[in-house]
């Protein structure tokens, strides 16, 4: 987890250096690197939580209260099993939906703003949107 965190920090610093040099958008190797460092963040978080929750056993309060003693008296194993099952069901719905949605966004790619009339068909008249005139100005020699 800590290793992943350090790697992510290095990626950020490298990105900052590239930006200062003006080469951020052109460095394909860096963009690939960003792609690769997207998932490790999740692993880092989960690894961290597992470390915390497993590592502190058998204590709830280190040295003072054991986990076995801190369980609510009314809570049975079946209760907890049911709640875990509900959480799993909800996550099994949410995560694939979210990832599927993100994937479809990525597949669609960045959206270009669409001009209502293509530039070459505008013959005269006042531009009705600011970027029309800017686009026209840009297309004039």
């Amino acid at each position, binding site marked *: 987890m800590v290793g992943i965190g350090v790697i992510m920090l290095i990626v950020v610093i490298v990105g900052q250096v590239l930006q200062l040099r003006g080469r951020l958008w052109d460095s394909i190797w860096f963009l690939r690197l960003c792609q690769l460092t997207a998932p490790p963040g999740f692993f880092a978080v989960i690894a961290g939580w597992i470390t915390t929750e497993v590592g502190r056993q058998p204590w709830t309060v280190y040295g003072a209260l054991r986990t076995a003693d801190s369980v*609510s008296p*009314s809570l049975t194993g079946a*209760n907890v099993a049911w*709640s875990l099952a509900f959480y799993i069901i909800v996550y099994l719905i949410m995560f694939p939906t979210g990832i599927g*949605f993100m994937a479809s966004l990525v597949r669609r790619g960045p959206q270009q703003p669409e001009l209502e009339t293509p530039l070459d068909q505008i013959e005269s008249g006042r531009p009705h949107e600011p970027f029309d005139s800017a686009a026209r100005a840009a297309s004039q020699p």
Partner: protein
Amino acid sequence: MVLDLVPLWTVLLALAVFYYVVFDGFDLGVGMLYGLVRGETARATVMNAIAPVWDGNETWLIFGGVGLLAAFPLAFAIVIPAVYFPILMMLLALVFRGVAFEFRFKHPALRRIWDGAFCGGSVVATFAQGVVLGTFIQGFNVKGREFAGTSFDWLAPFPLTIGLALMFGYGLLGATWLVLKTEGELQDWARRAAAICLVAVLVAIAGVSIWTALEHPDIARRWFSWPNIALLSPVPVVTALIAIGEWEALRRRHELTPFLGAVALFLMSFIGIAISLWPMIVPYRYTLWQAASSASTQAFLLIGTLFLLPIILMYTAWSYWVFRGKARGPGGYH
């Protein structure tokens, strides 16, 4: 001189819970009414009436819950296991509702599923909150310092009825919020929905008050014995006056006063419950002082809270100010 912080923390938590009930009440209410609205534009408008502000409203639930844990840990330890499943259901329902907000706008293909998630999530979350309140009023089976009941004590007539009653209560808050934030046909529909919910809420307030007094002779004695009956009579009288005022406000097509009236009805109900249960934080076994954490703990928590609370209130007020005015059509927020 040592200041007793227990009353201060009681007030803070009471305000947090009241704030949560009013603010998440209206957006859960709008969520429940959403299922009854027909037409794509109308539905989008309804969503937009709460879309900019709903996130922040839930944070008051966290403040109330964690504040209870930190300031009154004995109460937390006894109350929460008793309502384990209602709270679980509420949390999962809120997950669905929250996700439905965003995915509905951006994933049109599955819109009907997300509509169902939004409405169903709001219904389940509201019902669960009512059940928690009902279980709280019903009281807890306590042995020593532990909860001695089962995880299913909430499955009783009283809590389940309060769950249903709260659905109409939040429905009233949601409908009057829609009256404030929409116009035209949708606003008229919201007025009709508010009228129906108002009648249901009044029946619920009256019924629950009587039922509570019948189940708990101590509470009955507190309300009906002399001189309490004279001192406390303003509470039901004011409630009745507010109810009449609310009906008139809806009939006369006011915009803001219906929502304020609904909030006032919730306030009166809250005061009524507080009068009935004072000073119990674990009905009917432990008082606020018995369940409180140590003075140094409460002082420590208070410092952080008093620093952050004004900031939170300021940006909340600002966000409501920015998004004031009517919600018109599907555009504008996303």
